[in-house]
C-alpha cells in the first residue's frame, strides 16, 4: 500500500522503454512523407504570391496539357460551403472559412494561400503544370499587424465580417471579428484601494509550432467512392470528419489511417492537403501523394497568434494583488478564430484575484490563418501579466516567488475566470522552485534570474479503447489517438497496471478510423487523461471477464474470485482451495470457456484537472552583441500523477525550449508587399541543442481526483511561462524591461544602446 492508503502501483510511475522507440531510431517508422501506394501521383499546390488579391480568373488549360499531368483542381472542384461552426483545436471555427483556407475561392488572403493544385506522374511535370496555371489577380491593399488592421480605413479582408460582441451591432464590415469581455467583481473599485498600480503594454510575435515533419498525405479515391487517406495528423477522426464535410462525402465512405507524426503541437489539428489530395485522386483515378516543403509549411500553414497585451494590476503595499485589468488584441490570420478567448481566461488564473476584467479582440490580418499551438492563447497573455507581476515585485522589493506564493491560486480559490478550483498544484510548483538549488545559485555580472508561473485548463472529451487478450496471455491495446507525446507507452502502462502484468506484455497500437471507436483528436493535453480512462475501463472489464472465466473453470460463483497481480485467486478459504490461474492460463482456455476475451470502452471524459507550472531561468546578456545566453533553466509542474515520468519531463522540457525560441528569436518577417521573407529554419531561428543548457525539471504530484491514477494533462502548461520568465531574467541582468517579442539580439542591443544614451 502507498502511504496514503491507496494500493501501491507497480507499473504507473515507472520508466519502461517506449514501445515505438526501436521503429523510430531505426527509421522503420512510417511518417507522412514515407508512405507510398502503387501508381501514386505527385500532388503539388500553387500558392498566392500576394498578401491580398481578388482572383479574377484561373486558367488551367495549359497546365492540363503538360505531359504527365493527370489532374488540375481549383476551388471550383470543391463544394461551396455555407457557414457552419465546428470546434477545432483551440476554439470554434467555421467550415466555410476552413474550405476557403484550404483553397482560395474569390480572394487570396495571404502570401502562400493555396489557389490551385495539380497531380502528375513526376514532380517535374507537377512543377511545370503549376508554372502553366494562369491566375489573374487584382492586387489589393493588405494589412499585417493586428493594431493596423483595427484602425478605421484599414484594408478589409471580408466584406461580410461585422464585429460581434459590440452593441449596437455594427453596420460596417471590420477586421475585428469579435470582442469579448470577461469580468468578475468590481475592478474599478478595487483599483481605488490599490497602493501600487503597474500598467504597461506588451507585444508578442506570431510563431510557428516548428514541427519537424511537414504536412504530408496519400489519398486514394476508388471507383466505388470509397476514400482511403494515409496521413500524419493529430487526429485521424478529425481528418475524416473535415474531409467529409469539406467535400460532401459520407463519413462511412472515408477511412483514415494514421501514420507516425513528427510533431504537431496543435498545428496538425486541421486539414490542408488531405481534401486536395482526395479531389485530385477523384479526378485522376490514381492515388495522390502530397507533401509540403518547409517553405510551404511557413507560408501556408497556421502559426499561433501574435498580439498586444495591455495590463494593469493593482496591489497593496504588503504584496496582495487586488485588481487586474487587461486588453488582449490577437491576430487570427486570414480568417476569424484566434485563441483570444482562452488567452483572456488564463490571463490571471495563477492568482487568487476576485476583481478582474479582461477584454479580448479577435482580429483578421493578411497572414496564414492561425492554428492551435500548445495552450493556445495562454502564453501571449501570460507574457504580459507575468512581466507586469515581475515589475510589481521589483516595485515592492519582494522576491518574485514569495510574491507569487502570497497570491497563488489554491484549492478553494475562485479562479479569475470564475469556477472554484479543486485540487491544484500551483503553490507546490512555486515551493519546488524555492527549494531547488537553481534558485540559490549565485549570479555574475550581466546575469539575471527570471520567474514566471503559468496555467492551462486541460480537457477530456470523447475517447475509445479496445483491449484484446491474445491466446498466449499477452494483450493488445488499440486506441484512436496519434502518439505525439508518448501515449502508446502510457496506454500500455495503464492497461498493464489494471491487468496486473508486465508492460512489455501489452502491445499498444494506434488504430485507423474503421478499426476502433471514435476518439477526439490528440490535443488539449487530453489523451493520457481521457483515452487513458477508456483504457482503464476496458481493462477493468477484461479483468471482470477473466474472473468470470476462472469462476467457470473452478465452478464457483464469480463473486468468489479475486484478481491479484495478474492472477485469479479464490476470494478466501470459503471459496475453495484452487491454485491461482494466471492471465496466460485463462487465455489459453478462453476458447473452451466462452470464446475470445476482449473489451471496448467508449466514454466522454470530464473533469480534467487544471495544470500549473513555474519556471525560473538564469541568463547572461552580452551587452555588445545583444545575445542572450540561457545559463540555467528550471521548470516545475504539477502532473497530477506522472504515468511515465520520462515522458512528462520530456513534455516539460520541450515546452520550455519552444518558449525560449518564442522569447528570443522566432518571428515572421514580411516585406512591404506582405510577402514572407523568412520561410525556412535558416532565417526563422528555433533553438537547437547547442543553444541550451539541460532543462531541469521537477514534477510535483497533486493527484487529479477525476482520473483513476490521478493524471493531469502536461503538454500545454510548459510553454506558458517561458517568455515572461526570459524577459524577467533579462530585466534582472541588465536593468531593462523588454516588452516586445522576440527579444532578439538586435532588439536587446538597441535597448542597451538606448539605456547607455539615456545615462550619458
Amino acid at each position, binding site marked *: 500500500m502507498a502511504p496514503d492508503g491507496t494500493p501501491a502501483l507497480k507499473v504507473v510511475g515507472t520508466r519502461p522503454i517506449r514501445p515505438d522507440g526501436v521503429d523510430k531510431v531505426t527509421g522503420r517508422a512510417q511518417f507522412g512523407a514515407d508512405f507510398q501506394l502503387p501508381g501514386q501521383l505527385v500532388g503539388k499546390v500553387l500558392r498566392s504570391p500576394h498578401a491580398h488579391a481578388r482572383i479574377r480568373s484561373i486558367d488551367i488549360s495549359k497546365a492540363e496539357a503538360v505531359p504527365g499531368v493527370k489532374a488540375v483542381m481549383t476551388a471550383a472542384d470543391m463544394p461551396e460551403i455555407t457557414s457552419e461552426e465546428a470546434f477545432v483545436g483551440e476554439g470554434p471555427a467555421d467550415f466555410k472559412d476552413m474550405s476557403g483556407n484550404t483553397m482560395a475561392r474569390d480572394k487570396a488572403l495571404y502570401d502562400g494561400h493555396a489557389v490551385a493544385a495539380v497531380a502528375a506522374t513526376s514532380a517535374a511535370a507537377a512543377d511545370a503544370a503549376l508554372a502553366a496555371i494562369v491566375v489573374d489577380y487584382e492586387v489589393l491593399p493588405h494589412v499585417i499587424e493586428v493594431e493596423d488592421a483595427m484602425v478605421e480605413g484599414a484594408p478589409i479582408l471580408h466584406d461580410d465580417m461585422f464585429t460581434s460582441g459590440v452593441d449596437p451591432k455594427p453596420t460596417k464590415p471590420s477586421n475585428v471579428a469579435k470582442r469579448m469581455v470577461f469580468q468578475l467583481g468590481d475592478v474599478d473599485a478595487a483599483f481605488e484601494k490599490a497602493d501600487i498600480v503597474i500598467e504597461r503594454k506588451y507585444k508578442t510575435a506570431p510563431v510557428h509550432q516548428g514541427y519537424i515533419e511537414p504536412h504530408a498525405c496519400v489519398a486514394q479515391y476508388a471507383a466505388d467512392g470509397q476514400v482511403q487517406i494515409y496521413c500524419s495528423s493529430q487526429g485521424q477522426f478529425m481528418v475524416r470528419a473535415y474531409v467529409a464535410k469539406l467535400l460532401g462525402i459520407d463519413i462511412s465512405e472515408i477511412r483514415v489511417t494514421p501514420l507516425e507524426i513528427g510533431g504537431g503541437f496543435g498545428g496538425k489539428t486541421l486539414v490542408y492537403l488531405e481534401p486536395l489530395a482526395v479531389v485530385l485522386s477523384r479526378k485522376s483515378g490514381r492515388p495522390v501523394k502530397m507533401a509540403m516543403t518547409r517553405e510551404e509549411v511557413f507560408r501556408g500553414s497556421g502559426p499561433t497568434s501574435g498580439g498586444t497585451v495591455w495590463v494593469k494590476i493593482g496591489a497593496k503595499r504588503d504584496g496582495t494583488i487586488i485588481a487586474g485589468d487587461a486588453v488582449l488584441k490577437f491576430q487570427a490570420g486570414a480568417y476569424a478564430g484566434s485563441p483570444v478567448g482562452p488567452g483572456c481566461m488564463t490571463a490571471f488564473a495563477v492568482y487568487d484575484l476576485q476583481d478582474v476584467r479582461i477584454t479580448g479582440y479577435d482580429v483578421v490580418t493578411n497572414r496564414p490563418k492561425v492554428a492551435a499551438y500548445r495552450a*493556445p492563447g495562454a502564453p501571449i497573455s501570460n507574457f504580459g501579466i507575468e512581466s507586469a507581476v515581475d515589475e510589481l515585485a521589483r516595485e515592492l522589493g519582494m522576491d518574485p516567488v514569495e510574491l507569487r506564493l502570497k497570491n497563488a491560486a489554491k484549492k478553494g480559490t475562485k479562479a479569475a475566470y470564475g469556477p472554484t478550483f479543486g485540487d491544484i498544484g500551483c503553490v507546490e510548483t512555486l515551493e519546488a522552485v524555492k527549494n531547488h538549488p537553481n534558485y540559490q545559485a549565485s549570479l555574475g555580472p550581466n546575469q539575471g534570474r527570471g520567474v514566471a508561473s503559468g496555467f492551462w485548463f486541460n480537457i477530456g472529451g470523447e475517447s475509445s479503447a479496445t483491449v484484446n487478450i491474445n491466446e498466449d496471455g499477452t494483450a493488445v491495446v488499440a486506441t484512436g489517438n496519434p502518439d505525439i507525446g508518448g501515449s502508446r507507452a502510457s496506454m500500455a502502462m495503464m492497461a498493464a497496471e489494471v491487468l496486473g502484468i508486465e508492460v512489455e506484455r501489452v502491445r499498444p497500437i494506434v488504430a485507423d478510423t474503421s478499426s476502433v471507436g471514435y476518439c477526439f483528436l490528440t490535443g488539449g493535453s487530453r489523451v493520457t487523461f481521457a483515452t487513458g480512462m477508456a483504457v482503464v475501463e476496458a481493462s477493468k472489464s477484461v479483468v471482470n471477464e477473466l474472473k468470470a472465466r476462472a469462476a467457470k473453470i473452478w465452478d464457483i460463483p464469480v463473486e468468489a474470485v479475486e484478481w491479484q497481480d495478474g492472477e485469479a485467486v479464490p476470494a478466501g478459504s470459503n471459496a475453495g482451495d484452487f491454485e491461482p490461474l494466471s492471465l496466460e492460463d485463462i487465455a489459453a482456455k478462453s476458447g473452451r470457456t466462452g470464446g475470445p476475451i476482449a473489451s471496448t470502452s467508449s466514454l466522454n471524459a470530464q473533469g480534467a484537472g487544471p495544470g500549473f507550472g513555474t519556471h525560473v531561468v538564469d541568463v547572461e546578456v552580452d551587452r555588445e552583441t545583444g545575445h542572450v545566453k540561457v545559463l540555467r533553466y528550471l521548470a516545475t509542474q504539477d502532473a497530477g500523477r506522472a504515468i511515465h515520468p520520462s515522458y512528462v519531463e520530456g513534455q516539460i522540457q520541450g515546452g520550455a525550449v519552444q518558449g525560449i525560441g518564442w522569447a528570443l528569436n522566432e518571428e515572421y518577417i514580411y516585406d512591404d508587399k506582405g510577402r514572407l521573407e523568412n520561410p525556412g529554419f535558416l532565417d526563422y531561428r528555433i533553438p537547437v541543442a547547442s543553444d541550451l543548457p539541460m532543462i531541469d525539471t521537477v514534477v510535483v504530484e497533486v493527484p487529479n481526483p477525476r482520473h483513476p491514477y490521478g493524471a493531469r494533462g502536461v503538454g500545454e502548461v510548459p510553454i506558458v511561462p517561458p517568455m515572461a520568465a526570459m524577459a524577467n531574467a533579462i530585466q534582472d541582468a541588465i536593468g531593462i524591461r523588454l516588452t516586445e517579442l522576440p527579444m532578439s539580439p538586435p532588439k536587446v542591443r538597441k535597448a542597451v544602446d538606448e539605456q547607455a544614451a539615456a545615462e550619458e
Partner: protein
Amino acid sequence: MARIVLTHSACHRYTDGKAELESDAASIRALVRDLETRFPGLGRQVEESMAVAIDGVMYQDDLTAPIPEGAEVYLLPRIGGG
C-alpha cells in the same frame, strides 16, 4: 436551486446584461432547456459552444452531468488545446 454565473460577455446579450441567474435544473440538459425557455438563444449557445463548470469541475459536451442543489455553475467558452 443552483447559482448560474455568466462571466463571458457573449452570454449577456441574451440576459439583458444580467451576469447571475438562478435555476432549479438538475442536469446540464435541464439547464439548457431552462435557459432556452427564459432567454431564447442562450440555451442553444450553451449546448453548442460552451463549457459548464459545476462546482469547479468542467464539463464539455456532456448533457447528463448532474447539477446538485446549491451548486455554483459557470458558463464559459469551450476549451480546446494544442
